[in-house]
Structure formats: C-alpha cells, structure tokens
C-alpha cells in the first residue's frame, strides 16, 4: 500500500483530529496543503479530483479518497490497528463514539464561523451565537466526561482514544479563538491540558504551518 495523502490545513480543527491519530499510530503519510482561507477546497479542481463536497480533511489511499474526519478516524483504526484509539469492548467503544459525535455533530458545525456569519453581520451577535453553541455542548460534555474519564487525563478511561482527537481542537478553538470562560468546565480543562503535552497532539497545533 502506498503512503496515504492527507489534504489538510493548519487552522482546520477537523484536520487536527486526523493528524493526532496519524501521529499516534506513527502512520507515514504525505500532506497536501489546501488553503481553506483562500477557498482552495471549493475550487473546481479540488472538488472534481479530491472531494465533491469541497471539504478538508480528506485522505487519499491508493487513488481513492475518504472525507469526513470521523470516517477517516474509523478507517485508520481498522487498517492500522497498532496503538488502538478505541477500546475493545462494544459499550466502551460506543461511549467513545458518543463523545466524538457530541462534539462533531452537536458543537463544531454550529460554532463554525461561517455559520455564525450567516446568522449575523454584527461581530457581537456572531460571538453570542458561537458562545451559545459551545457552552451548550460543553455543559453536556463536562457531565459525560465526569463519568467516563478515569483520572482527568483522557476522555475515556486512561488512554488516548478518538474522543481525545476530537476534543482537543474544539477546546483550542473555544479558548484561543473565542476566549470562552472555561471556569465551568474543570474536567474538560484537565483533560485538554494533559493532552496538549503529548507530542502527537502538539504536532498538529494550528501554529505549526503545514509544508
């Protein structure tokens, strides 16, 4: 099998999810930079050759492309089972996926700046929208993590899972982009601070521009 190619951009939170998994599993891969700020993912070339939905991340394997970060994470878990990112037992796996989906469907799409921009042209109203959806999601997430995290270092149990891959970029956005007050979320912060020390997480930090 040839090296997979990841189409990504350094500020894309969904790309960061996949980059954590690739680094954790030590999967050698190539990167193609797709500048979403310049709308490169919406170019006819990208949409016809890579992903009709015009999105990143996308993973190309032997000429075939998979989009949607959670689908990519599941694919990597199946094809590269070393250093697993899901527990073995079915209910435990379901709880990890529940956390992933809570963030990926319940928070990220709604706090997306483009969606906030569609809501209002006023900066204050956009921020209000973003904060509402992040807070709504984090209130639920804090309660769930209090039951699933073994020691405040990882979302589920005491090892890295796909839930952590999805949590990190969302919390980073909340803090760094939107300056959200994280005081009500001590468990989320404990896990986030712990994860941000890991090399596989640091590698995909938005400050590290992709080459």
């Amino acid at each position, binding site marked *: 099998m040839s090296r997979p190619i990841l189409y990504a951009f350094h500020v894309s939170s969904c790309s960061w999810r996949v980059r954590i998994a690739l680094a954790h599993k030590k999967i050698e891969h190539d990167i193609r930079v797709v500048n979403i700020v310049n709308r490169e993912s919406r170019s006819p070339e990208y*949409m016809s050759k890579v992903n*009709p*939905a*015009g*999105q990143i991340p996308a993973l190309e*394997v032997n000429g*075939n492309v*998979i*989009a*949607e*970060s*959670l*689908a*990519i994470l*599941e*694919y990597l878990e*199946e*094809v590269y089972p070393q250093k697993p990112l899901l527990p073995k037992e*079915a*209910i435990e*796996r*379901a*709880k990890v*996926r*529940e956390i*992933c*989906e*809570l963030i*990926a*469907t*319940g928070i*990220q*799409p*709604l706090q997306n700046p483009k*969606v906030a921009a*569609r*809501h209002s042209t006023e900066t204050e109203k956009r921020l209000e*929208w973003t904060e*509402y959806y992040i807070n709504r*999601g984090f*209130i*639920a*997430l804090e*309660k*769930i993590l209090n039951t699933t995290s073994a020691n405040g270092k990882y979302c589920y149990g005491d090892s890295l899972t796909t839930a952590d891959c999805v949590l990190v970029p969302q919390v980073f956005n909340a803090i760094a982009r939107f300056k959200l007050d994280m005081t009500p979320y001590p468990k989320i912060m404990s896990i986030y601070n712990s994860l941000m020390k890991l090399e596989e997480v640091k590698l995909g930090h938005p400050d590290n521009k992709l080459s």
Partner: protein
Amino acid sequence: MSKYVMYEFPISSCSWRLRIAFAYKGIQYESREIEDSDTPEFRKINPAGHVPVLEIDSQHTIAESIAILEYLEEVHWEPPLLPQDPFQRAKVREICELIASGIQPLQHPYVAQKYSDDPKKQAEWTSYYINKGFRALEGILEETSSDKTRCVGKSMSMADCCLVPQVYNAVERFHIDMTPYPIIQNIYTELMILPIVNAGRPDNFPSESE
C-alpha cells in the same frame, strides 16, 4: 440477548435512523416516547438533552445515533449495515457524517428559530443548509452508488439509514425542490418502499416492527 429500550419521539429523524437499523437486523426493543428531551429529568439520562438514547439491560446508556448504529453493528452483525471492505466502510461512514454533522444539525428547527423569529427567514436558513448538503451528497453518491438504489454499492448500509429521514424532512416538512438531486431521490424512493423503512415513518409511530 440484551434488553433494549430506546428513548425517542416520532418526528426525531435521528431516532428513525435507528428504527430502520433495528428493523433491518430484526432486533427487538422497547420504544419509550419522550415528550420533551430538554428537561432536567431527561438530562439525567442524556446530559446533552436529546434523543435517541439506547438503554442496555437497564444499566448502560448510549446517546448519539451514529454511536448507537455502530454499537448495533458490532453486537448484531447479521445482516450487516457496513460492507466488508475498509474503503467501502469508510465511504458509508463518510455519507453518515456528511448528513449527521453537515446537514441535520444546521437544518434543525431550533437552530433556524435561533437565527430568526420570522418564519420566512427560518425557511430560507433551512433551505440553504439542506441544499448545500444535498449538493455535496449527490456528488458523492454519483461515485459510491452502484445502481442508484442504495448509497454505497448495492447493499443496505448505515448511510441509507441516515439518508431516509433527512430526505423525508426535506420533502415532507420543508418542501425542498429535489429536481437537482436525482440520485438522492431515486435512492429515497427505493428505500421508502421497504417495510423496514416505511414502518419507522413519523406518521406510523410507534414503529410496526416492534
């Protein structure tokens, strides 16, 4: 076999995804209809305050429909709702996520209502996000659907479970013009003939297959 209870309500599209899966796999479950999931009481069951939630053996609860679909697939793998080949499995999941994160949350009435009190503006919001999502979906289905009767290849999958309720909402609730999406329309029409799909329709609730 485990005892399953699903907390749901008739119009919940995410719950209908699971009704299809339960019926397709022939799994018995008890349906518990919830009037309002956004209450302190229901949030004890699911802190996120939404349905569906699967309760297993009165002990464990799983929320988020995609997580529940994956659980059912792992524990009750026959008949399968995922192909064998890893790349094909990924394409099924890609379609599920495109709908579950790219369309459904954004077209939700509560989100449209947060955008505006004006019903006309709400309809515009909903229409924008459904159309944006369906344009992307149509492009993907052109590559993945073998014969335009199922989302991926020729077999039933989780992607079909996710497609049906979203198209139903688009057509029946929001009156979206489906002319630009012939593949989506055809797959939807073919799936809606199936009793295991039709039985879970909001107006057939509770599902006949229980």
